[in-house]
């Protein structure tokens, strides 16, 4: 069965959607974001999201699945990643392909701001998309590994709930890592 790779991210009216779900070929799934954007994707791609894979297994996946927790812009990014990773190249067998994919991944995440990456992590967690969750989490972890506590607070928007004395005590405890 040939699968067309074009994704439809235009908005559909209710009637069009209903018609589409009746006439869609078997191997296509329609995902709808929380803000009404629709994405038609191959079943193989949809299966990357464990939450949907389980629905398909349990036979309760209709042709159109609402994704209430994720907005269209984030969902489209996730689908873009999922499409690239439908088939994961074996590191031993096809080193070239793995390198190419790693390079694509790096460029993919480079263009995104931190806030978008957070939203992607939350969405990937909700959809249970291991591959992207791991990759995005690792990206953020690598980003913060040399940051000071102040920088980490800023990045995650965490409130400093220590009193100055408490913070000083902690810094003294592990002085070797805070000095210089």
């Amino acid at each position, binding site marked *: 069965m040939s699968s067309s790779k074009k994704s439809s991210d235009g908005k559909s009216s209710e009637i069009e959607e209903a018609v589409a779900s009746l006439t869609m070929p078997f191997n296509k799934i329609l995902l709808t974001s929380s803000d009404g954007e629709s994405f038609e994707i191959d079943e193989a791609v949809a299966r990357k999201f464990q939450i949907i894979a389980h629905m398909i297994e349990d036979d309760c996946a209709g042709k159109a699945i609402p994704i209430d927790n994720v907005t269209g812009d984030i969902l489209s990014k996730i689908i873009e990643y999922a499409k690239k990773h439908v088939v994961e190249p074996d590191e031993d067998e096809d080193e070239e392909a793995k390198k190419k994919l790693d390079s694509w991944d790096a460029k993919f995440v480079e263009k995104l701001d931190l806030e978008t990456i957070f939203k992607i992590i939350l969405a990937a967690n909700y959809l249970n998309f291991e591959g992207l969750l791991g990759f995005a*989490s690792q990206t953020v972890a690598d980003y913060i590994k040399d940051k000071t506590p102040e920088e*980490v*607070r800023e990045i995650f928007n965490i409130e400093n709930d220590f009193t100055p004395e408490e913070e000083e005590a902690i810094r*003294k405890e592990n002085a070797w890592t805070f000095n210089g």
Partner: protein
Amino acid sequence: MAECPMDLINELFLRLAATTLVRCRAVSKPCFSLIDSPEFISSHLRRRLETGQHLMILLRGPRLLRTVELDSPENVTDIPHPLQAGGFTEVFGSFNGVIGLCNSPVDIAIFNPSTRKIHRLPIEPLDFPERHITREYVFYGLGYDSVSDDFKVVRMLQSKLKGGKENFGYPVEIKVFSLKKNSWKRVCLMFEVQILFIHYYYHLLPRRGYGVLANNHLHWILPRRQGIIAFNTIIRFDLASDDLGVLSFPRALYTEDDMDIGVLDGCVCLMCYDEFSHVDVWVLKEYEDVKSWTKLFRVPKPESVESVDFMRPLIYSKDRSKILLEINNAKNLMWFDLESKSLTTVGIECDSSFTADILVSSLVLGCKGDPTEAQRRKDQMVPKSNKRDGFLSKGFKLKL
């Protein structure tokens, strides 16, 4: 942006190296509690062991410890010896991010280089006067008992003077320290093991006194000596039962000279030297099955060294096609390709006075600094009498 949820922070923190997490304790109270919690410390350790991420090579030099990231050898951190005494501190084991340090049989500590947390062992007096033992005859071992989730240190020494009356032969003392109990306990030997020590006095070459941890046991070789001791023996300390016993190994190796013991991927291995030519490595594939001893591979002597006196396998590469070897000392850390049998040097910044271990990045022992430690270190630096005497006595400190 809304505040980041704690379970997302948890997932991100699980991916960080221990040294970064020490800093993150100062971010906020929830982060502080998370990083100090025993559950997080075990999850973090488990993640490090599963992914092999943030593994380091720990280099022990005469004046400092140095950690080198295995995946990025340009990332180097120097740590002043926490047991600095103007002498030579030894590293006698490394497990789950914790290492064993000793200056003498009464100056021992366990230490986590990532968090810099040190736990000094209470001083346990020796049965024999210090002049009756010398460095060559002390065995140390850093062990972890998975049954009781406890770190243990084993210290074994033999007197070079034959004891009279009851203690006929060369008396031996074995004691084990439990971190959970923070106390030492004497180990009573079964007769079958005691007789190994009575007639024979074992001379250990440098670094051969360090126990090898595998299968919840610590292992040492009691080496043969031409004309005096006919056969090698492998003794093993059961960390769950605190008993000393013997491990069987191929008869062909009973008379190997200078055989060494090590551990690779959790399996005990033996190194047999033909110092100007090659080293053979035998591995015990199934711990309780003596028939599963297998000669696994032969490493040719690298051209860059004159002879191989000491070789230890450290770790497999991620794809398991290569093994990292330390040959003679840390200056010669090399990847041995199992298929092509070729050796590739790892460019590590050190000289031949350094030795190597593998170190896991973990928070084991916790991050709580010891406020008295900084003061103690300061006190050690101040000489006891007037300044001039102090300066002289430091250099002449006699070491066991």
